[in-house]
C-alpha cells in the first residue's frame, strides 16, 4: 500500500514475494501487483523462494500450494520454523475444509482458492499488511489541500467538507492514491464502475465533470485532462 503524504508518492513500497510455478499466474501477479504499487519478486519453486526470503526481508509472501519441489504447506512450515513471521497468503485449487485447516495450521495467515478475483487478492493483501502492523495503512489520504477519510467517507478541501456520490468518492480515492498518475477512461471505468459495466466510457467524463464542479468551485484547478490519454490529479493545483 502506498501511503500518500502531502501529495507525494511514498517511496517506501511494500515488498511482496510470489512463490508460484505457473508462468501465466506469475506474470499477471507481477504486472498487476506492480501496477498497484507493490515491489514484486517471484520464485518458481519453494527452495528458491525460501532462499530469497533468507536473503532479503519481505512484507508479504504469496505462496502456491502446488509447487514442483515441496508443497506449499511444507514450505510454510519450514519458513515458520526458521523464525520468520512474514504474513503468508496461500493460493490453491483445493477447496476442502481439511486443506484450509492444513494451510492455516502450517502457518499461513490467509487462504485464497483458485481461480480468485484479483480485486479480492488485493483486498486480502491490504488486510494482511494492516494486520501485520509493521506499517499500518492510513485510512486517511491527504493530497495538497484535499483530505479523504475512507472510514468516515468524509472529503474536505481546505477544511471545508464536500459531499460526493459513491462513484465520485471512488474516483477521487483512486486519484488521491496515485497523484499525478494518468488514468485512461477505460481504466477508470473498470476500476470505478466494475469490470462488468458495459456502457460507454463517456460516463466517466460525466462523473469527472461532476467531481470537478464540486472540488474546483474556487481555484486552483486540481484535475488535469491529458489530451488523448485521460485524467490525472494534481494536488498542488496544476490542473487544467
Amino acid at each position, binding site marked *: 500500500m502506498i501511503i500518500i503524504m502531502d501529495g507525494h508518492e511514498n517511496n517506501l513500497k511494500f515488498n511482496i514475494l510470489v512463490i508460484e*510455478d*505457473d*508462468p*501465466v*499466474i506469475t*506474470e*499477471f*501477479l507481477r*504486472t*498487476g501487483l506492480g*501496477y*498497484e504499487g507493490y515491489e514484486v519478486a517471484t520464485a*518458481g519453486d519453494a527452495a528458491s523462494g525460501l532462499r530469497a526470503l533468507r536473503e532479503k526481508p519481505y512484507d508479504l509472501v504469496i505462496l502456491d500450494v502446488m509447487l*514442483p519441489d515441496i508443497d506449499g504447506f511444507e514450505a510454510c512450515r519450514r519458513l515458520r520454523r526458521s523464525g520468520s513471521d512474514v504474513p503468508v497468503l496461500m493460493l490453491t*485449487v*483445493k477447496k476442502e475444509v481439511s486443506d484450509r485447516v492444513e494451510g492455516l495450521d502450517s502457518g499461513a495467515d490467509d487462504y485464497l482458492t*483458485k*481461480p*480468485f*478475483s*484479483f*480485486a479480492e*487478492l488485493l483486498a486480502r493483501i491490504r488486510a494482511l499488511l494492516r494486520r501485520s502492523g509493521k506499517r499500518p495503512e492510513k485510512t486517511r489520504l491527504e493530497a495538497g489541500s484535499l483530505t479523504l477519510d475512507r472510514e468516515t467517507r468524509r472529503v474536505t478541501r481546505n477544511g471545508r467538507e464536500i459531499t460526493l456520490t459513491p462513484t465520485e468518492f471512488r474516483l477521487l480515492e483512486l486519484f488521491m492514491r496515485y497523484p499525478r498518475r494518468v*488514468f*485512461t477512461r*477505460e*481504466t477508470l471505468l*473498470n*476500476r470505478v464502475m466494475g*469490470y462488468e459495466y458495459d456502457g460507454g466510457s463517456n460516463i466517466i467524463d460525466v462523473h469527472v465533470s461532476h467531481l470537478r464542479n464540486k472540488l474546483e468551485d474556487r481555484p486552483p484547478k486540481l484535475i488535469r485532462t491529458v489530451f488523448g490519454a485521460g485524467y490525472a490529479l494534481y494536488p498542488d493545483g496544476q490542473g487544467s
Partner: protein
Amino acid sequence: MKAWQRLSLRARLSLLNAFLLILSLVVLGWSSYWNIWQLFVDSKGSHLRARAKPIIEHWLSTNNLDKPRCPGRNFNAGNALSLACDLTSRDAVAIVVDRKGEVLASGRRLSEEPEAPPPDKAYLKRALAGENEITHVVRVKDTRMLVLLIPLRPLPASPCIFGVVQMSAPLDDINQILFRHGSMLLMLALVLLFAGSVAGFWLTGLSLRGLRDLLDTCNQIGRGNFSVRARVRNRWDETGQLASAFNRMLDELEAALAAQKRFVANAAHELLTPLTGLRGSLEVLLRGAQDDPVASARLLKGMYREVNRLVRLCEQLLGMSRLESSYVVKRQPVILPDFFSDFSSQAKSIMEGRRLVIRQGPHVTVRTDPDLMQQVLFNILSNAIRYSPPDAPIQIGWRLLPGQVEIQVADQGEGMDPRTLSRVFEPFFQGKSDKSPGEHGLGLGLPLAKSMVEALGGSIRIRSKKGRGTTVFLTLPL
C-alpha cells in the same frame, strides 16, 4: 392367494412349517390310535378264544360229542345251554346256534351280564362253512361289541360242524383306555404343535436374519450412506454368501465411484489452473495494464497459452469419455513391418530431431484397428520424447508370443521411480521431474493409450528405471 403373497417370507415359512407339523401329528396320532385299537381288540379276541377252548373241549367230552361221526341227537338245547352258561362271564356272553342257524341257548342269566347281539347271518354262514377265526365288531345300542364265532366240531380239523358258539364282549373298557390315551395324545400334539410353531418361527427368523440385515444395509445405502456393509453372520449358508457377494459388489462400486470422483476433481483442478491465469490476467488488463503495450503483450501471450491449454485439455477429456463410452473398433489385417515403416515416416514431424529406430521383428499380420494403434503409439512416443534427451534414440520393436504379439517402445530418458510407475495410468497424474510445468503434458496420454489398447483387446505395461530409461510393452491378440 393375494393375502398369502402379502405375507412376509418369515410368516409364510412359519405357516408352512405349522401346517406340516399339524399334518404329521394328525397322521401319526390317528395311525397310532388305530393300531392300539386293533391291538386291544385282537388281544381281547384271542383272550376269549383261549378261555373258550378248554371249556368247549371239556363240554364235548362230557356230552359224548367228541366222536368222529357227526353227532345228531346228542346235541340239543339242554347241553347247548350248559355250554353257553359255562362260557358266559361278566365281560362276555355266549350263545349257541345249531346247524340251521337257530339260536339254541343263550348264556346270559344275570342282568349285569352284557346282552348278546343277534348272530349275523353272513358271518354265521361262513362259520358253518368251516371258517375258524371269525371276529367282527357290531354296534348294539351305543356300545360296540366284539363278536367271535367258534364252529363246533367233534374233533379238531373234523369236517363235520354241528353248531356255532357266538361269544360277544363289550368294548367299553378298551374305549375308555383309548379315550384316555387319545386325550393325552391330543394334548401332547397341541403342545408339540405350539412348541414346533414357535420354534419354527424363531428358526426361520434366525436364518432370515442375514436377509433382514441385508435389507437394512440396502436401505441405509439408499439414504446415501455408501460406507455401510452387510454383516456376514455365517459365511457358509446362502444368506451369508449373498451378504459377502453384496459387500464385494459394494466395494467395487465404491472404488469405481471414488475413481470417478477423483477423475472429476482432477479434471476440475486442471481446468481451474489455466482459468486462474486467464481471469487474473484479464483483471490486471482491465485495471489499467491495457494502457501499457509491453505489459499487455506479455499478459495476452500468457492468456493465449492458457486458452490453448484449456482447448487441449477439453479435447483430451472428450477423447477419454468417448473411449470409455463407445469406441468403434474397426479391425482389419495389419502387416506389422508395413505398418511400422508408415508409422516412422508419419512420426518424423513429432520427433523434434530425435532418431526413431524401428527394429524389424517377424513378419506378422495382426487383426486390429490401425488408426487406434497409431494413436496409442503416438501417445507413448510423445511421452518418450518429452522425457528423453534430444540425442537419445527411441526404439520400436516387436516379437511374437503364443497367440499374441508384443510391441516394445524403448527410450533412454529420465525413467521413473517405482512410486511414479505405479501411478502413471491414473488420469492427470504427472510424475515429479525437472521439467517446467509448460513442458509437461496433461497427464492423460498414458491413461488414454491404456484404454485404447484395452478397447483393442490387448494390454499395456511399463518397465522403467530411474535414470536408465523406460520401455512400454503393448500386447495385442493376433
